[in-house]
């Protein structure tokens, strides 16, 4: 978790509000992926990013490789957005495969 640091570690959101999650990298990340793990444990791929931004419905993600961070914005949070969000980075000069952060646990309440 020290190569990919996620913040905050936990977040409580009221339905309908907006929030942002962040990942900081101490490895030279070249691509980033964001995942949502639901309470049953299934991991869903939300975004695959090269430097730049992507948007999908109420979710928007950005990756800045020069400043070594990525963000995930949740707009108009819904109950089904609850779960643990993981970011993971690929780095050319580091281990193969993805290096994961420890996750941000998001709870959306009515």
């Amino acid at each position, binding site marked *: 978790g020290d190569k990919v640091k996620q913040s905050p570690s936990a977040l409580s959101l009221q339905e309908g509000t907006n929030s942002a999650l962040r990942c900081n990298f101490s490895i030279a990340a070249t691509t980033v992926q964001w995942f949502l793990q639901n309470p049953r444990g299934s991991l869903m791929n939300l975004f695959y990013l090269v430097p730049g931004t992507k948007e999908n419905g109420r979710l928007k993600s950005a990756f800045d490789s020069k400043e070594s961070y990525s963000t995930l914005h949740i707009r108009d949070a819904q109950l089904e957005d609850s779960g643990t969000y993981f970011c*993971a980075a690929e780095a050319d000069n580091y281990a*193969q*495969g993805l290096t994961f952060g*420890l996750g941000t646990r998001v709870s959306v309440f009515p």
Partner: protein
Amino acid sequence: GGIITQTPKFLIGQEGQKLTLKCQQNFNHDTMYWYRQDSGKGLRLIYYSITENDLQKGDLSEGYDASREKKSSFSLTVTSAQKNEMAVFLCASSISNERLFFGHGTKLSVL
């Protein structure tokens, strides 16, 4: 679309036992991965394979063996289960190192 199937969903073993977990994917992806997730922690890479019969060690390979018998399947063996070990093993696949898709996991408990 495709699917990644992991078997079994739950695995209970005895200390010292050799245990095998299986993973099948029908995405026709080249690369497959095994990750371990401990409670409250992120995922750590055990093994990955970029093609049939290829094996690459991840950070956590000690205590495990893997086998990529064919493009669609990747198995993981716990060589000697540790007492009170409890973790979820997640299989994933991708085209090269691009977008990863995960199976639903195998939950391991060792008595």
